């Protein structure tokens, strides 16, 4: 277990692709990763809510992550995956273009979103509120997502 003992400065990230960019979320929020399955459309929902899927008998809402954070739409491919995410008793599936790997990043290498945007004075602009920070792993940039914003836990989705 010694070598797995992540020092308090390190975080483990599930990295995945949306378009060409690499994104990540804390592994602690990831329940499992599934292949794309049947998704049932639910009427009267925002367009980024793809619908609901069957996860071993329970009904799971599915979010199209690209639509959610304002990236252009694209066809689903063989590499498309659903990451099952759990945050504060809410479990949802998130559609991503591909899951790459689990990364360990030293928190010293994470630039928080405040630092990035403070100079531009648009810290709360629509596209940036979903971003917690950017991890830099030997010049490989991973955008870390703010899951609670994405799930609208702050009361946006109604």
């Amino acid at each position, binding site marked *: 277990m010694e070598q797995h003992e992540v020092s308090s400065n390190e975080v483990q990230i599930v990295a995945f692709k949306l378009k060409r960019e690499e994104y990540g979320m804390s592994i602690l929020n990831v329940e499992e990763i599934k292949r794309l*399955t*049947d998704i*049932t*459309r*639910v*009427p*009267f*929902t925002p367009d980024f*809510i793809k619908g*609901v*899927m*069957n996860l*071993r*008998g*329970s*009904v*799971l*809402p599915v979010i199209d992550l690209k639509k959610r954070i304002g990236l252009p739409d694209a066809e689903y491919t063989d590499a498309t995956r659903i990451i099952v995410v759990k945050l504060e*008793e*809410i*479990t*949802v599936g998130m559609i991503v273009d591909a899951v790459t790997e689990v990364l360990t990043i030293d928190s010293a290498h994470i630039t928080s979103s405040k630092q990035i945007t403070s100079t531009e004075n648009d810290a709360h602009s629509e596209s940036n509120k979903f971003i917690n920070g950017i991890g830099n792993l030997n010049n490989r940039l991973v955008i870390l997502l703010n899951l609670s914003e994405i*799930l*609208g836990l702050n009361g946006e*989705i*109604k």
Partner: protein
Amino acid sequence: MDTNQYMEMFLEESKDHLQSLNERLLDLERDPADSSAINEIFRSAHTLKGMSATMGFTAIAELTHDMENVLDLIRNDKLKADEDIVDVLFKCIDALQQMVDNVSDGDPENSVEVKDLVDRLNAIATGNQQPAAPKAAESAGKKADNETIVPPTDIELSDIDLDLINSAKDSGLRAMQVKVILADTCVLKTVRSYMVMSALDEIGDVIKSIPPTEDLEQEKFDLEFELILLTGEEEQKVESILMNISEIKKVIIKLINVPAPVKKNISVEKKASVPAAVKKNAPAVKKQAIQHHDNMKSGQSVRVGIERLDSLMNLVGELVINKTRLEQIGNTHRIAELVETVEQMDRVTGDLQSIVMKVRMVTVGQVFNRFPRVVRDLAKELNKEVNLTIEGEDTELDRTVIDEIGDPLVHLIRNSMDHGIEHPDDREAKGKSRVGKVGLIARHEGNNVIIMVTDDGAGIDANIIRNKAIEKGVITQEDGDNMTDAEAVRLIFLPGFSTSDVITDVSGRGVGMDVVRTTIEALGGVIDVETKKNEGSIFKIKLPLTLAIIQALLVDVQEEIYAIPLAAIDSTINITPEDIKTIQNKETIVIRGEIIPIVRLDRALNVVSAEDKEDEEIYVVVVHVGDKKCGIMVDKLIGQQEIVIKTLGKLLSGIKVISGATVLGNGQIALILDVAILMQ
């Protein structure tokens, strides 16, 4: 003996026995001559005694033992079950309940103070005996002694028994009637009876027992039982063998002399096969007993933890998904055999799924059955006369809901009796019957289960509530003035309103009503109240069938599948586009002279329509909510099916027109329509 592994069983079974004690004691109170009630009470108490003694809970065993003494006197008509006695017995049950609760909490069971109860029990028991017998237990023993003088002749012998006895005699065996009386301290009676049986089996054949073998196995007998034994041994030998078994108090043996059978032909026939018949018959008797046992078992139940059911349900879900994959493989590779097999598997998994779902359902009767006792105690406490009626106790609800609903209901019932039902004299003055009525009613209504607590009491005075609420600062004077009476009455559900000091001065209600409301709402339900002055109040709890199973019609709209609850459906009809008439810009159809507005489901749900198919046949599902009717236009009717309602979850909870979702047999999800919302 390691009793830990039996602990759970003990607790569960004790609860059952206490419940049955409560119920039957209520019956006995109503009709003191009810012999089946007293017998059942005795049996439950006795089983409880045996179980607790085995588990080492002597306090429970001792209390039940003392109860038994009194019960025994009642059972033998030596004592009348009057109010005092029933009261004491109820208190004993409460004490036992407390002890069992302590055991389940890991506390010592003997921390409950029962000395008073024991004294009173003994006083009741000894007060009705000869002064010579100081202890009830001894008197029971005495009684048994007395009974032994009566010759044991009451075994009824059937023709078959007679034949057996006769043929046994012909082959030199004796038929004897053996009466075994166990020591009254005997706890493991079943074990003793079993030892008796096996001892006798070694020296002969037991052809009959009273009570029957299965009752012996389940301890459904008192301290004595009788057997008919066919054996070559002498009576003394048999007696000494039996007396070697511990805890046997007495054995009485009597030879049976049966007159020679009248029907010669049968006896001749039997004679030919004498030894065989005797030998064969003994196992046959046993076999029959075992069969009986099985029958009993099929009606019995097994207790399973809900989390096990959950994981079972998940596994079944997984199985279904994999089955669907196999199906796809079969179809893509055109393997007929595989497809065929999968089709059969499909049926099995479907059944499996629905059974697993059903297993989670329990009837509300499980909650309701505790209320007769609650009402009885409360009526006594409040000096009121109350008659409780229960309806719809076989309505099924999900187990999790059942577990939660009990406390709110107790609250409502207490409120109805405390604040609703008036004192008998007041009722008489108002021209009502002295006996107040409290009703507990459950039924299905559309997608919901309705549970109502009704009373014919004083009703809730809206003005008092209004004033109290203003005084408490829950609402402003202005709010209060603008409120209708119905709205004012609903104030009782507000948190600020229902503190206990309010109740004492208000003739209305309010004890923890907000707690009731919160619990109900946590279950996804709503509570409402209707009240009429001097006519009573109705508290109506509406619970969604979360996880409940309903019958639904599956319909197809542009390849999307929706479920419409069957309870809301009147009929389905086939129309052509010409049948649709427009009235004030609204599309309607006429069915049997009735004008019914229609809703195009694809438009109502913003379904992306692939193509317009105006010229085809149109299917309309006619639904109703209350008296209002509406036709829902769909593309195809798929069929009727039992579905399990699941919530869409917190994230999607805002969507009104969808009341839930269900997982279809192929793993696909179909949404359930809320017809009432759709009609608006």
